[in-house]
C-alpha cells in the first residue's frame, strides 16, 4: 500500500471529522446554491408548459426531489445507525442525528407540495392513499427518532435506542416506493423508474435531476454543519475541543 492511500478510518474519529466537515462545508454549500439556482431558473423559464396540467405541474420540480430526498436521507440515516450499532463508532450516531431534522423537513415538504398539487389536480388536499399515508408515516418516524434521542439523557443509550428505531422503520421505505404499484392509488405511478427509464419530456427530466442534485448538496451541507455542532457539544470536556482556534478567539 502506498502512502497516497487515504486512511478513511481516520475520519471516524470526531476531531478528524470535525476538521474535514469544516473544509467540505463551503464546497457543498456553493454547489447547492448554484444547482438550485439553475434548477429554479429552468423550472420557470426553460421547462415548457404541460399540455394537460398547464403551469400547475411545475410543482413537480420540488415535489419529486423533496420526496426522493426524504426517502434517501432515511436510508442513509438507518445505514449510519446500523454501522454505529455494529462497530460502536460514536461518529455514526452523530451523523444519524445530524441527518434526521433535514430528512423530516424534506418529508414535510414532499407532503406539503403534494397537497398543493393534489388540490388543483385531484380536488383534494389530502386523501388516505397508500403513497400519501406511507409518506406521512415516514414523517412520524423522523419525529419519533428525534424525540426518542432527545428524551434519553445518556448519549450512548439514546444512540442505541434511536438506531434501533431507525433500522426498524426502514421497512417503510420500500413500502413508500412500491406503494403506487402494490395498491390502486390516486397518486400517479413513478415518472422515472430504474427499470423503465423516464416517461417525461427531456427538459423536464433534466430540470428535475438538477434540482435533485441541488437538494442533495444542500442536505450534505446542512448535515455537515449540524454534525459539527453535535461533535462540539458531545466532546466539550475534551482537550482537543478546548484547543480549537475558534474556542480561543472568544
Amino acid at each position, binding site marked *: 500500500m502506498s502512502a497516497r492511500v487515504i486512511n478513511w478510518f481516520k475520519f471516524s474519529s470526531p476531531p478528524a471529522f470535525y476538521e474535514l466537515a469544516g473544509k467540505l462545508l463551503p464546497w457543498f454549500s456553493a454547489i447547492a446554491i448554484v444547482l438550485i439556482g439553475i434548477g429554479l431558473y429552468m423550472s420557470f423559464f426553460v421547462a415548457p408548459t404541460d399540455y394537460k396540467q398547464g*403551469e*400547475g405541474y411545475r410543482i413537480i420540480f420540488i415535489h419529486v426531489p423533496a420526496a426522493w430526498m426524504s426517502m434517501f436521507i432515511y436510508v442513509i440515516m438507518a445505514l449510519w445507525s446500523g454501522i454505529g450499532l455494529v462497530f460502536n463508532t460514536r461518529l455514526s450516531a452523530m451523523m444519524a442525528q445530524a441527518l434526521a431534522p433535514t430528512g423530516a423537513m424534506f418529508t414535510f415538504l414532499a407532503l*406539503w407540495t403534494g397537497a398543493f398539487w393534489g388540490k388543483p389536480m385531484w380536488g383534494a388536499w389530502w386523501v388516505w392513499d397508500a403513497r400519501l399515508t406511507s409518506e406521512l408515516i415516514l414523517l412520524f418516524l423522523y419525529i419519533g427518532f428525534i424525540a426518542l434521542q432527545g428524551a434519553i439523557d445518556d448519549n450512548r443509550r439514546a444512540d442505541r435506542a434511536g438506531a434501533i428505531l431507525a433500522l426498524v422503520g426502514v421497512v417503510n421505505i420500500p413500502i413508500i416506493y412500491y406503494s403506487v404499484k402494490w395498491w390502486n392509488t390516486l397518486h400517479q405511478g413513478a415518472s422515472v423508474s430504474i427499470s423503465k427509464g423516464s416517461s417525461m419530456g427531456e427538459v423536464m427530466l433534466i430540470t428535475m435531476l438538477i434540482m435533485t442534485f441541488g437538494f442533495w448538496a444542500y442536505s450534505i451541507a446542512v448535515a455537515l454543519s449540524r454534525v459539527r455542532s453535535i461533535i462540539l457539544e458531545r466532546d466539550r470536556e475534551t482537550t482537543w475541543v478546548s484547543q480549537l482556534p475558534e474556542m480561543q478567539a472568544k
Partner: protein
Amino acid sequence: MSASEFFYMGGYGLYVWGSFGVSALLMILEPILLRNRRRATLKRISRIIRLNTEVRNES
C-alpha cells in the same frame, strides 16, 4: 411574459407559489438556524473552558 402573468401561473398561482414559497422559506431558515446554533455552541463551550482554566489557575 409579463410579471403579472408570471405570478398568475395560468391560474395555478396559489398552488405553485404556495409550494415553492414554503420550500424556499424552510430551506433558507434551516441554514440560518444552524448558524445560530454554531454561534451559541461556541459561545457556551468557550465560556466553560475559560471558567475551568480560571478555577485551575486559582487553586
